[in-house]
């Protein structure tokens, strides 16, 4: 990783009403990189998927803390880590398959697929009973100076 130029860590209670807060907080923080609308929507969507996964799958019918860490590096990259201490994922490669879900019928099973296609890098680590860590990176296109 290049040098970190700014960083924020936010702790959220895993309630679904906090998903929009996570997206908004992320948007405000990465505005300093002046992303275009597509880049902003891509990152917001990926974070929304990760936070939703922690709430729906990680904590299921319980409430726990989700930690969102965002770093901006001097190579114009946004590094995001979403961490929960929920039930974890038994089989990560299965969970990353498109259309696979352990959730209710209002879940599409496309969360990891969307994160993967909207971000430049995605890694998932998890221990059953301990929790899940999702790391994502996206480079923001540098604007030409006028």
């Amino acid at each position, binding site marked *: 990783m290049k040098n970190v130029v700014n960083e924020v860590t936010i702790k959220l209670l895993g309630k679904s009403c906090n998903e*929009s807060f996570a997206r908004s907080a992320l948007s405000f923080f990465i505005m300093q990189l002046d992303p275009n609308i597509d880049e902003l929507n891509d990152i917001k*969507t990926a974070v*929304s998927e990760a936070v*939703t996964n922690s709430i729906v799958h990680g904590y299921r019918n319980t409430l726990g803390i989700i930690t969102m860490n965002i770093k901006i590096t001097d190579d114009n990259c946004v590094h995001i880590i979403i961490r929960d201490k929920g039930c974890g994922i038994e089989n990560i490669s299965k969970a990353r398959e498109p259309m696979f879900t352990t959730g209710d019928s209002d879940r599409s099973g496309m969360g990891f697929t969307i994160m993967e296609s*909207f971000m430049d890098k995605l890694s998932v680590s998890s221990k059953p009973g301990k929790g899940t860590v999702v790391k994502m990176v996206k480079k923001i296109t540098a604007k030409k100076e006028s």
Partner: protein
Amino acid sequence: MKIKSEIRGSILKICLTGELGHHEAIEAISQIKDELSDGKYLQAVLDLTGLSFMDSSGIAVVMKAYKTAQNADIKLAVKVENGHKKRILLAAGLNKIIDFI
């Protein structure tokens, strides 16, 4: 998120505005189902252009709307502009079963 409906002849237009994530999805699915279920329309348009944000919850909302419309013999189309919302729906292959306009 808000849902508003307009009726033009036999066409029902359901317009979603605001943000559609997991928190809003269950309510959206239920409201859209209510709008479509009485079956007095031949066609329906699910208009997503007013949404300022949508994640993969939108896939489940569109799929549920499609199934409800199918059961009520209504032909459903989805109105969505190019951009992240359309990319999400395309990632799930919904263009293979639903017309995008």
